[in-house]
């Protein structure tokens, strides 16, 4: 069984992709997964050569056949997602974005006028990169934020790792604590939480750490741009240690990191100031994995 290392953050924009790309550079024999499907950015640094592309079937929203519909209003009254409305022509219609595909309206419709239809809500890819195989995805804007898509790309990575005997899987996660994050951390062997030394960063870390604890996954914490506020940075360190996380280390603030990203280079490769800190963080994370 391959081991899975996941990088998440709670708060957005704290440096997940910066750290994941650095790990992708340092780690030997792994499959890279970008699980941040509605803001996937790893491709910018990894420059994947897409070898296989598949469509992702989303949930199956309801569709009303206006020919058969008797306008009895039952579906509209039952729908808890406010997805059914009457359009300008007086017909009952389903808002596919709001529809949760629960099937209740179809079951309840006395005229048999509703069916659930297949939709495509994204794409996923298998690619080759300079740093190994990458499995990544793209959710169409406005689509259901499907933890399913995350589960699927992770599953695909595990199959590939078995087939090709690759020992590690490296996953770039999404911000927040909701369904894509839950899907990202479940089954992980070690979760690295990268945060920033701000009140917001600390607040969001506490919440995402609790989430990881409830799934009983081991965690490690990294503070990015630690020198922006050393007081909060130290607070984060104590918080991690007191709450059973491995404190993996800190990365200094360096303006050249954003320059590297603008040039589409992996910050670890382009910026000398962050090399040693990230080496240490990486080694500690690999020991914990």
């Amino acid at each position, binding site marked *: 069984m391959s081991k899975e290392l996941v990088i998440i953050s709670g708060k*957005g*924009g704290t440096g997940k992709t910066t750290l994941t790309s650095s790990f992708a550079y340092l780690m030997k024999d792994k499959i890279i997964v970008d699980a941040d499907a509605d803001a996937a950015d790893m491709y910018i640094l990894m420059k994947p050569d897409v070898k296989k592309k598949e469509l992702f079937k989303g949930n199956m929203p309801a569709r009303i056949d206006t020919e058969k519909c008797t306008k009895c209003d039952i579906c509209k009254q039952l729908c808890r997602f406010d997805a059914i409305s009457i359009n300008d022509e007086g017909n009952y219609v389903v808002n596919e974005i709001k529809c949760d595909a629960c099937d209740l309206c179809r079951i309840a419709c006395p005229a048999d006028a509703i069916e659930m239809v297949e939709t495509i809500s994204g794409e996923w890819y298998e690619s080759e990169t300079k740093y190994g195989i990458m499995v990544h995805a793209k959710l169409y804007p406005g*689509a259901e934020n499907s933890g399913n898509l995350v589960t699927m790309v992770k599953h695909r990575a595990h199959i590939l790792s078995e087939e090709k005997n690759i020992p590690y899987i490296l996953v770039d996660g999404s911000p927040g604590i909701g369904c894509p994050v839950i899907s990202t951390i479940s089954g992980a062997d070690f979760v690295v939480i990268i945060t920033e*030394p701000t009140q*917001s960063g600390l607040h969001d870390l506490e919440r995402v750490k609790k989430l990881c604890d409830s799934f009983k996954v081991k965690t490690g914490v990294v503070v990015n741009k630690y020198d922006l506020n050393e007081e909060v940075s130290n607070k984060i360190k104590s918080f991690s240690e007191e709450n059973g996380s491995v404190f993996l280390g800190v990365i200094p603030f360096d303006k050249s990191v954003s320059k590297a990203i603008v040039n589409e280079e992996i910050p670890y490769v382009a910026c000398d100031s962050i090399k040693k800190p990230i080496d240490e963080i990486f080694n500690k994370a690999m020991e914990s994995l």
Partner: protein
Amino acid sequence: MKIAVASGKGGTGKTTISTMLAYAADNSQYIDCDAEEPNGHIFLKPEIEKVIPFTLPVPEINTDICTFCEKCSNACVYKALVIVPQIKKVMFFDELCHSCGTCSYVCPVENALVEVDKEIGKIRIGKANHIAFVEGLLNIKEASATQLIVNLKNYVDNTKTVILDSPPGTSCTVVATLEDSDFVVLVTEPTPFGLSDLKLAVELVRNMNIPFGIVVNKHDDNVDLIEQYAKKENIEILYRLPFSEEFAKNYSKGILPFEEYKNDFKNILKTIEDRI
């Protein structure tokens, strides 16, 4: 006037821009819709006057009268209910339940399956000086904040300038936040990540047919990236907030220069009013 502040990419400054807009308006309401990780309270420091639990109905099965017919478990598309008739066992996985009500609708036995309220989050209401404050806070382990956000919208005060601070991304929680707003401010940063996610956000807002403009945060030497895109797509850049280490340091302490930027943000509000 309802203005939603969104971004695609996380950490570009949605909360910074939202709270500064709310501060600059004379009579405003700030609603934090980023219920997974709400941060507006850190900067506005509101006095919370009321905390309202937000609940959704989930099934509860009375195994004394349940006939284990499996109609509910067969109907549940989320696989939240499992019935094993042989051993008269019912299993309910609340984290998979979407509170759609299908199970209770299909249950043929009266009172065998009733719906009970389960708290999935909280709505916190208060005041931060002249700003009315509302925040959604999702309980940890809950998968979806969408229904909580839909409910937050019931607290919109239409007599005020309403600022909705959106979650990151472009998926269902963002759609729930943006829906029915009069204008969307897309906050981005001048990096390829910022641009890549901005494009997705623009696609979403265009699909939803809401007027919008861009605020470039951490504006620096790499200006061209966003400027060129905005020009090509004919999107108005409402404001450019330059990168400053001092700003970032204060932000880290939970302090934003509300007063210093008040006039600039008043002007943004004026521009938005003209565009609606």
